[in-house]
């Protein structure tokens, strides 16, 4: 009993001093995290600029060629363009046919609508002179959407017209021609209601490749996980194996491999948790300042973050223990982090990963870390993340002990 107490005391003192030693690296870890964060933000900003070239995404420019003297046609067009659903994605530009065709060729317009004279009257009397829709041949997503939109609109119009003509014919057959305006008005109202406001009949269910998380939560957890793993570089000197003399003396004093390795992992975890908490406060304030949702710093989210950093620390310590040199350890950490984050669906959502790799997206330490960081963004961590975290920690802790025993 006395032996156990003395041994435990020695282990506790060693553990306390390791944590103290690790915390001395806090300024360096924070500085590197800020630097990595700034680089990641710059890369993301640059990527977005490159992809979208400073152009608003989702607006579809449509050229409209209409007879300026056709007041009813102009009114219909104005109604269409002021409809909320259309207004949010389309810009209608009135122009001439020649200008519209040139604009299509140059890519300024995604489509051109050539509205025939007296179009509305044609619909009313059944002659139905069609609207000619010219689409650019680029086959872009916007063009495809517009084609679908116009075809659907035409089908709705066809069905509405068929219904109205059938009612007119039936009234005529029954000798009740005086009722035709009322019937048409009623049916127009019904068709318009169905055509324009059908969304009310359905329950809205948002389906996203990002899972439960929104964009901020998804990339936020990925960014923090990346920062945590790569922060290992700034505490590399600490994570590397102790000097042989120190290892021998600790062993002689009864502080075995498991206690030493666990001590180191715990110290790195405390260091990373301190860095996360210190950085989380200004980041949260910054997000709120930009009108976004701030981070949730509750007891639950801090507990989950502590579990997440423990997993990160086990991976970091494993890399430097196995490589046994700063450079090799850093390289191994970079490669392993990249692979784990990719497999965890941190860069591309898991739905876009090849089928063979998809099982790894749930059961790897990086997905556990991302899942456990979820509560910082207001999402529950879930049992799967907890299980993956425990498994990930045990695997890397075990591998660390194995590599240390092999190298003795």
């Amino acid at each position: 009993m006395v032996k156990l107490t003395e041994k435990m005391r020695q282990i506790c003192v060693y553990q306390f001093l390791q944590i103290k030693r690790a915390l001395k690296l806090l300024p360096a870890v924070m500085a590197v995290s800020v630097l990595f964060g700034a680089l990641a933000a710059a890369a993301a900003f640059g990527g977005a600029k490159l992809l979208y070239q400073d152009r608003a995404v989702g607006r579809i420019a449509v050229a409209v060629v209409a007879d300026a003297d056709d007041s009813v046609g102009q009114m219909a067009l104005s109604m269409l363009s002021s409809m909320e659903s259309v207004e949010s994605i389309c810009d209608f530009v009135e122009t001439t046919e020649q200008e519209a065709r040139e604009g299509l060729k140059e890519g300024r317009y995604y489509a051109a609508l050539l509205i025939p004279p007296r179009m509305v009257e044609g619909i009313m009397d059944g002659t139905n002179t069609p609207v000619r829709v010219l689409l650019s041949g680029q086959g872009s997503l916007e063009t495809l959407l517009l084609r679908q939109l116009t075809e659907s609109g035409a089908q709705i119009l066809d069905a509405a017209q068929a219904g109205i003509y059938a009612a007119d014919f039936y009234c005529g057959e029954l000798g009740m021609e005086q009722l035709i305006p009322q019937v048409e008005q009623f049916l127009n109202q019904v068709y318009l209601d169905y055509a324009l406001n059908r969304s009310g009949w359905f329950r809205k269910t948002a389906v996203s490749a990002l899972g439960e998380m929104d964009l901020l939560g998804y990339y936020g957890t990925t960014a923090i996980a990346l920062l945590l793993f790569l922060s290992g570089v700034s505490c590399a000197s600490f994570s590397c194996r102790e000097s042989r003399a120190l290892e021998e003396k600790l062993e002689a004093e009864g502080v075995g491999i498991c206690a030493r390795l666990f001590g180191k992992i715990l110290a790195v975890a405390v260091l990373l948790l301190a860095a996360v908490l210190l950085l989380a406060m200004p980041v949260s304030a910054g997000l709120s300042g930009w009108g976004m949702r701030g981070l949730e710093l509750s007891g639950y989210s801090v507990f989950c973050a502590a579990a997440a950093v423990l997993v990160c620390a086990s991976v970091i310590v494993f890399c430097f223990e196995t490589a046994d040199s700063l450079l090799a350890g850093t390289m191994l950490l970079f490669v392993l982090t990249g692979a784990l984050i990719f497999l965890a669906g941190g860069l591309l959502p898991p739905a876009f990963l090849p089928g063979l790799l998809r099982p790894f997206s749930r059961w790897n330490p990086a997905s556990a870390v991302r899942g456990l960081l979820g509560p910082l963004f207001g999402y529950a961590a879930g049992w799967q993340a907890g299980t993956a975290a425990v498994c990930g920690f045990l695997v890397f802790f075990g591998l660390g002990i194995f590599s240390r025993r092999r190298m003795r």
Partner: protein
Amino acid sequence: MIEVAQISKAYGRRQVLSQISFHIEEGQCVGIAGANGCGKSTLLAILAGAVRPDGGKVLYHGSPADRGRYRKEMGYVPQGNPLLPELSVKDNLKLWYKGSEKEWKREQDSGIIAVLELGPLLKRDAGRLSGGMKRRLSLACALMNHPRFLILDEPGAALDVVCKEEIRQYLSEYLKQGGTVLLTSHEERELSLCGRLLLMRGGRLTEIPADTQAGELAVMITAETR
């Protein structure tokens, strides 16, 4: 006091220690000499409990040496300095110290900290100390708990003459007070402290006269190396 019986150790296919047996009496200073890489440090690490032998046993007062009493009464100074460089001298000493706060005060005022002149350096990071001071700190780490048996692996290696002499004087004082020492060294001055001298050759130990001169020792070691 210490009985080493049939200790063997191999690293891969290389047999470093073969059936080594010897004993050390209380108050003795035993020196082990030998060529570089002959297994002296491995033997000391086994005696300190840092490395497990493939075979054989170490007994301390008749009991297996992996017991708590042996750990408590043995001080080990490995070849390198077992220090945490980012921490202060005080923290490094506290890592190995097993006494109370009250006793710590006494150590600081008149004990090993004062004797090895580490008092003014307590707040300095161990990594910033000179080689000599680091070695002195390593020695202090081993002596903090007043061990009855000291295992020293080349205590004066890579130190200047002044430091070597200071450490030698301290060991001499320790022996006068009844301490037991087992050390390895290549230094004639250090080995001159030893009442018994063992030569390690081909993984085996041979006792040689304690007054063997450096020249003769060199011939013995060289003969084994060739």
